[in-house]
């Protein structure tokens, strides 16, 4: 199973995503902001990063940019959590090197669907 980092300033979101992923057998690490996420990412290697875009401090887009600079994260899937009201975030995310996005609100099923798309089949 995969080692996943989730980044969101909303505790509700983190808990939801964490629970969904943990229930599917993944190992999950939570970070509340970009700086924290980068520290975690340097400490261990994650198979997948799921990040919110709008966070206090540096945004999720900046997180993608920073992660892509790290040798270990050149090809690691990074999924952004966006909303339908921010279409420009998608192109920004893409430009920064994000793998894709999940549009909020989403249900656990949609999240697991995305996982199937980016994680190696077990």
């Amino acid at each position: 199973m995969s080692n996943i980092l989730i980044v969101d300033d909303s505790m509700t979101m983190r808990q939801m995503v964490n629970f969904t992923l943990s229930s599917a057998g993944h190992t999950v690490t939570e970070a509340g902001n970009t700086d924290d996420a980068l520290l975690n990412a340097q400490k261990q290697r994650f198979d997948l990063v799921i990040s919110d875009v709008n966070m206090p401090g540096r945004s999720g887009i900046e997180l993608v940019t920073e992660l892509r600079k790290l040798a270990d994260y050149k090809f690691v899937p990074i999924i952004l959590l966006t909303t339908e009201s921010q279409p420009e975030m998608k192109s920004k995310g893409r430009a920064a090197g994000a793998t894709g996005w999940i549009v909020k609100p989403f249900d656990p099923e949609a999240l697991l669907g995305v996982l199937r798309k980016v994680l190696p089949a077990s």
Partner: protein
Amino acid sequence: MSLDLSRFHATFFAESLEGLNHVEQQLLDIEQVGHDKGVMDAIFRTIHSLKGSAGSLGFGVIAELAHEMESVLDRMRQGLMSATAELTNVLLRGVDCLRNWLLAAEAKEPVEAASGVELVRKLQLLLQRGGGDAAASRAVTDTAADGGTRQKYVIVFRPARDFFHSGNDPARFIDELAQLGVITSTADLSALPSLDAFDPTTCYLAWRIALETSASANDIRDVFDWVSNSCALEIEHVRETEVRSAETPQEEGVPRAEAASAARRDANLITMHVRTDKIDDLVNLVGELVITHTMLKQSMQHLDAIKDARAVSVFAQLERNVQDIQERVLAIRMMPVSHVFGRFPRLVRDLGLQLGKAIELKLSGEQAELDKSVIEQLVDPLTHLVRNALDHGIELPAERLAAGKSAKGSLSLHAEHRGGRFVITVSDDGRGIDAKRVRQRALETGLLDAATADAELDEAATHALLLSPGFSTAREVSNLSGRGVGLDVVSQNVRKLGGSLEIASRLGQGTAFTINLPLTLAIVDGMIVGVSGERYIIPITFIRECLQVSAVQLQSVVGQGQVLHLRGEYIPVLKLSDLCALKGAVQSTQPVLVVLEAEGRAIALQVDDLLGQDQVVIKSLEANYRKVEFMAGASILGDGRVALILDVTEIVKQRANIRPMSGRMLSDAAAAPRDSSVVAV
């Protein structure tokens, strides 16, 4: 897979309600100081998160309103709409509505969706007027799939060379396509280089995929949505031989500066939500620990500092640790007083508008910390004082100008630690308390008889009248501070917290209410005194001095018992044995007097012995036994015996009652000393 999402509700409610409180404050800030990118971003983020979580947890109504607010906020933070009073009003009402819905949902009550319809409409209207196209930011619904009939498509999928760099894998998209129907795919290997030129991080492949599906072309394009910029995509509808462009609409938006917001920098501090009862348990346990420690200390008193050096030094270490733990645990329950202050900007703004008064609210010292339980119980009294100041204290602009003041009234809330106490002041620059009106009103309500009213009432006695039950100078019961609840309730609430309320006022210049509180209700520094073989504890904060006096210094005054003449001051003497109706009191020729002071008044309490000083854990008598007059609680001493803790405030008051007063007894509160400029409550 279905997951029970209700387990996230508690976090969601707590986080969202807290967020809304911030938003409320921030909206008011914006209205006051004008546009601030950082603050606007913070507001936007909070509502944005709330919407996301609400939608994901199935609170559609909440998400919908949050969505409309978010659309408006988005335009505001881009500077396309400005925070007019009207806009702020609607947003604040939105905050109220969201809060009510969250509270209802939390209580598992049905959400009153109707109340939001009007708001949603208003927001949409504002958005249109603000030059924004509401539809542009809304979800675009997909065109319906072609009615379930199977269609054939041929898809050519040509990933860009750097396709892998976004962490994507072409195979996954083909897998996902396969979920739409039946696929047959062939890979185009023509671009593959020779092995020595091969770069494993470059994508050389392309695919031609035949798909038979009931899904629409849009559904197919959605599969490649993530990579629409990094691949060439052709989707051909075979039956109609219609080739569609592989391009998706351009989505380049206005570039935005991602400014770091100072407003929520605090939120970056790592915090953890812990249930209050867990902390209360901890506080109780620490209380027990302190008692056990005191017992141990007593049984170790006979140890020899040299012979038992090790035990003594280890014990000293333990003592420090116990003290540290106690401090830290009590600190957990401390919250900044901003938790109460934070609600007033909104209240003052709304009331000011309602009353037609211009008011400037000044908050200071809101970072000072106080025990959580005290903070919670301060909400009502403080709210009442603020409403009272706005309603009765601060005049209408015209009246103020006529009195030579600025049209804008000023209301200040200030909090600070003063010695071992916590002091909160609510002061205004309004009309002050009119002693004549107070007296007249007291006559009307029968609180005062004519004879007493004629006699000169000093300031303290006048203020005491204000705190009498049933007193109100407002001609009509206004719906602001009225409702028949008077200042007496405020002073009662404050007294319940072990505190006191003082009034200082100058006619025409303003009024200040000062609430004086103990820092914590859990542990107190106490002086242990002995009388007739019993032990009592006096909270040290009330002790001014202890002295042994000769009987000569005690003078008898007819009708007043004994008084102590101390440095020019006459202090009434009260025997603790009398107060507690103890028999066999020792008549010492050299009695020990403990001079107590509460609310500006002194009293000398006569005891047999001073036995020592210790930190004691307050246990409620009411909860464990019943209310005992003059006692604030009980504690367990080091030797395991129970001792009662004196309620000094109550005793000082009782002493005042013993004193004969001219005229009718007004009330407990009104019977305050006449020689003091402040009122004891």
